């Protein structure tokens, strides 16, 4: 079947070229538009260039475990001696491959991830010992089954459909316990208390560095763009955790030294945006880039490709497995605001709280076309935000580049209306003082 093989190789090569083009375009847009940005961001731009454009392998030793969805406990993977790799793809190139065998209306993230894995694991990943697929949304569930069909070893990590009940907590803890044994079998290394404590500490260092970075966005003159923060968190998907933590801390040190010098990533009075919804995964930073190119600045986010990846820490009481493993399980269920759960209470509350603590002027809610959970929650969230008097713009889009003009009109109109609101508020305050 050498003709098939040849065609297969061509398809891989073409996809790689398209991916490199997309990645290059996103990186160029970002690098060119922030000329006096912090030098420490270069590490992250270069990392993406190396992985997405050049296909440079990042890891040479050890077992890699692919993860789909943010609920897979990384700490357990590290404790079992392997390295996690988040597989969710943001590439239009792969979305087009997935479109060959997935329904037209399915979520672009699923199409892209399956498209990518259909032609083989990402060039920089090496081989995958296992793919862990939490049973979150319908499309992710079926994606897991399809990956098995492609020949990947897949572990379906069972998640409860609700998170508040004690039943859900018990169910998830049992699911995680079972998963930890599967991990041990896959890597041949036992999860000991010391290894798990080390893993938890390593992840906690990374999370601490992330929080340090994120807190800069609370400033009235943010020193970095929201899209830069997204590039940093996207690097977390695949970078070595120690290197990543070091690079984030170096970036924070540089940003600290620039405080008070007047260096700001944006103009004064730029509308401050809280970005929520379907996750923007590199290179699909289409909507976040548009927001920031239209004069806004993304000061916070509630997406699983950025803040939700790193925000919540594991908290255990006793350094023993019987406490640590359930504590790890809790961290991945309790604070999770994915719309697959029966209630959106937690998400609604978190959005208002974030909007307030980051002083956001408005919320941009992205749903991918075909993502029912996010689209359905849009109304509930919108209503809750309206009651808190926080304006919201809903955008439905996918990975294709052809709706840029249409999105620009909506985003610009939203920025204009936020600026108008801010002006009126300022005028009212002046009037009240008189």
């Amino acid at each position, binding site marked *: 079947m050498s003709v098939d093989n040849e065609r297969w190789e061509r398809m891989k090569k073409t996809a790689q070229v398209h991916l490199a083009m997309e990645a290059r375009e996103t990186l160029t847009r970002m690098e060119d538009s922030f000329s006096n940005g912090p030098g420490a961001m270069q590490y992250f731009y270069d990392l993406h260039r190396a992985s997405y454009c050049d296909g440079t392998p990042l890891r040479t030793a050890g077992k890699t475990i692919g993860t789909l969805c943010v609920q897979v406990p990384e700490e357990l993977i590290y404790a079992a001696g392997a390295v996690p790799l988040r597989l969710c793809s943001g590439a239009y190139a792969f979305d087009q491959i997935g479109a060959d065998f997935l329904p037209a209306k399915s979520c672009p993230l699923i199409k892209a991830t399956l498209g990518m894995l259909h032609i083989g694991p990402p060039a920089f990943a090496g081989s995958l010992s296992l793919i862990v697929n939490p049973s979150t949304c319908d499309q992710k569930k079926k994606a897991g089954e399809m990956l098995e069909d492609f020949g990947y070893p897949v572990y379906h990590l069972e998640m409860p459909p609700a998170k508040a009940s004690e039943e859900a907590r018990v169910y998830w803890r049992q699911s995680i316990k079972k998963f930890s044994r599967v991990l041990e079998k896959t890597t041949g290394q036992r999860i000991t208390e010391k290894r798990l404590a080390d893993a938890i500490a390593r992840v906690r260092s990374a999370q601490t560095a992330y929080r340090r970075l994120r807190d800069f966005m609370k400033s009235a003159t943010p020193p970095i763009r929201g899209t830069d923060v997204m590039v940093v968190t996207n690097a977390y998907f695949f970078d070595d955790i120690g290197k990543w933590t070091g690079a984030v801390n170096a970036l924070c040190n540089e940003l600290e030294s620039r405080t008070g010098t007047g260096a700001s990533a944006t103009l004064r009075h730029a509308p401050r945006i809280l970005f929520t919804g379907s996750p923007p995964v590199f290179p699909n930073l289409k909507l976040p880039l548009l927001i920031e190119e239209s004069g806004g600045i993304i000061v916070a986010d509630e997406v699983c490709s950025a803040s939700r990846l790193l925000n919540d820490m594991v908290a255990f009481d006793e350094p023993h497995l019987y406490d640590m493993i359930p504590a790890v399980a809790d961290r991945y269920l309790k604070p999770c605001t994915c719309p697959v759960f029966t209630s959106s209470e937690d998400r609604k509350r978190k959005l208002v709280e974030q909007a307030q603590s980051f002083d956001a002027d408005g919320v941009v809610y992205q749903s991918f076309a075909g993502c029912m959970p996010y689209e359905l929650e849009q109304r509930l969230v919108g209503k809750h935000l309206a009651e808190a008097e926080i304006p919201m713009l809903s955008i439905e889009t996918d990975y294709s580049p052809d709706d840029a*003009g249409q999105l620009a*009109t*909506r985003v610009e*109109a939203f920025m204009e*209306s936020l600026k108008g609101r801010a002006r*009126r508020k300022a005028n009212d305050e002046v009037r009240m003082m008189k």
Partner: protein
Amino acid sequence: MKYFAGIDIGSTAIKIVLVDENERIEAHQVSATGSHFHRNTVEALGRLIEQTGFSRGDIAYITSTGYGRKLFKEADESVSEITANGAGAGAGRVSGEVRTIINIGGQDSKVILLDRDGHIKNFVMNDKCAAGTGRFLEMTARNLGMEVEDLGALHHKAQAPLTINSTCTVFAESEIISQLAHGHNREEIIAGVHYSIARRIVRLAKRVGIEDTVFFDGGPALNAGMVSALEDELMRKVVVPELPQLTTARGAALLARSAWIGTGEQVNV
């Protein structure tokens, strides 16, 4: 006296409005966008200035809007057509009256909701599909061998409007041709097209909510049949301004004036 220009560069037509310092409309013009919209816009502005007898220096500020707004570098500023349309319909200045703005353009349609104080609260657009836009009317006129301007007059002569089932303009064309072949008259088809567009608009509008008073602008608002069908589907009367095709351009002109005059008198949409 200084003048301010609002230029709405649409997909079908370029609309220019000049207002004076007292917000009076001094001059206006509608011309075809064509394929070279930048060149055509520059020429259109030139022609309008010549017509008025002013000099270019009398025009203190130009605000552009519409899909061609960014590439028209001669403008001092560009705003989205949503903000411009809002300003043109009285947003930011007339409180409590206009609450819903329905705009049907050459190839898009939009609904803008204003709050009690006249500021833009929400909006929804259809710009992915030409059904429910001026394109649909153009296609209809073409197939009936008529001018778009003459469609409205035949609307009320229909005994009963025909139902157009196709949601897509391209397939609706085939449907119309087939209906003509079956002996249906132009009047029924025209009325049917108007109701089809009106239904789509109302579906769009429901996504942001419809509140009185409803303001209807854009070129198709010149069509009395379209207004009638829209009122029937909305189940309420709508207000159509004089020169509805120019509302957005006029809004841009008002924003131009406001930008030039300064914070004291800014139109706050």
